[in-house]
C-alpha cells in the first residue's frame, strides 16, 4: 500500500474506469517463433495460453518482433523488400480470448523464422 505524500496532489474520481483482470509482466511477454513464409505465401499460426479467469475477457495487446519496439495488434509491421516476390516482407499479429484462453493469431510474411513477443492485458467486460 503506497503511503500518502503531502508533496503530491491527489484527486478523487467518481467515474468508471477500465478494470484490468490480468496484465503480463513487462519482462514476461508471451513468445512464439513463427516459421518462415514469404510476402505472398505467409505462414499462419494460432497459439494460445490459458488465463483461468473463468469469464469472457476483453484482450488488448501489443507485439514486437525485435523485443524492443512494440506495436498494437492490428498493425502490420513491414520489413525489407523481398526481390523474389517483389513485395515487402511483413508480419501481423492479432489477439482474441474466450472464457479459458487467450489466443494469438500470427501471420509471418518474412522469409525467416520470426519470434513474436506479445504483451497483453485482459479487461473485464463489465
Amino acid at each position, binding site marked *: 500500500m503506497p503511503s500518502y505524500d503531502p508533496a503530491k496532489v491527489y484527486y478523487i474520481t467518481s467515474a468508471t*474506469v477500465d478494470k484490468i483482470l490480468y496484465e503480463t509482466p513487462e519482462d514476461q511477454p508471451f513468445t512464439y517463433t513463427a516459421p518462415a513464409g514469404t510476402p505472398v505465401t505467409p505462414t499462419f499460426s494460432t497459439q494460445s495460453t490459458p488465463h483461468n479467469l473463468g469469464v*469472457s475477457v476483453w484482450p488488448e495487446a501489443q507485439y514486437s518482433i525485435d523485443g524492443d519496439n512494440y506495436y498494437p495488434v492490428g498493425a502490420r509491421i513491414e520489413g525489407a523488400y523481398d526481390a523474389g516476390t517483389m513485395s515487402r516482407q511483413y508480419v501481423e499479429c492479432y489477439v482474441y480470448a474466450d472464457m479459458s484462453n487467450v489466443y494469438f493469431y500470427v501471420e509471418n510474411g518474412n522469409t525467416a523464422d520470426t519470434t513474436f513477443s506479445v504483451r497483453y492485458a485482459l479487461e473485464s*467486460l463489465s
Partner: protein
Amino acid sequence: MSIVGLWSGKNYLKHANMGTVSMSKPGILAGALYTSTYVVVHNLGYEPLVRAAFDGDNDGTIYPAVDQRGNAGAQAAIFGAPFGLFIDDITTTTVTFRAEWGTALAGTFPLYYRIYIDPTL
C-alpha cells in the same frame, strides 16, 4: 462496472460513456462487401479516445475491434474472427462502429465500447 472512488497520483482514463449494445451482423450490401453500422451519440464536443470489442458468434469469444479478418477459406478458419469490425468514424458528437464481411450474415451480436473523457480537459 463499479464506481471508483479513490485518491491516486495517477491519471486514470475515465469513461465518458461505456456500455454493451446489440449490433446487427453485416447484412447490407455496400459496394463489394456486406456491412452493418452502429452509432453512439456522445455529444462531448471533442473527438474522444474510443475502444471497442465484440463477441461475433455469441459464444463468449471476444475480439478487439481492429478489423481483424482473414481471407475466405482456409485462412478464415484458422483466423477465427467471424467478421471484421472496426471504429469507422469519430466526430465531436458521435462514434460509428462498422462490421464488414464478404457474405451476408443474419442476427445480432454484443458490441462492447468505451468512450473516454479527455484527460487534458
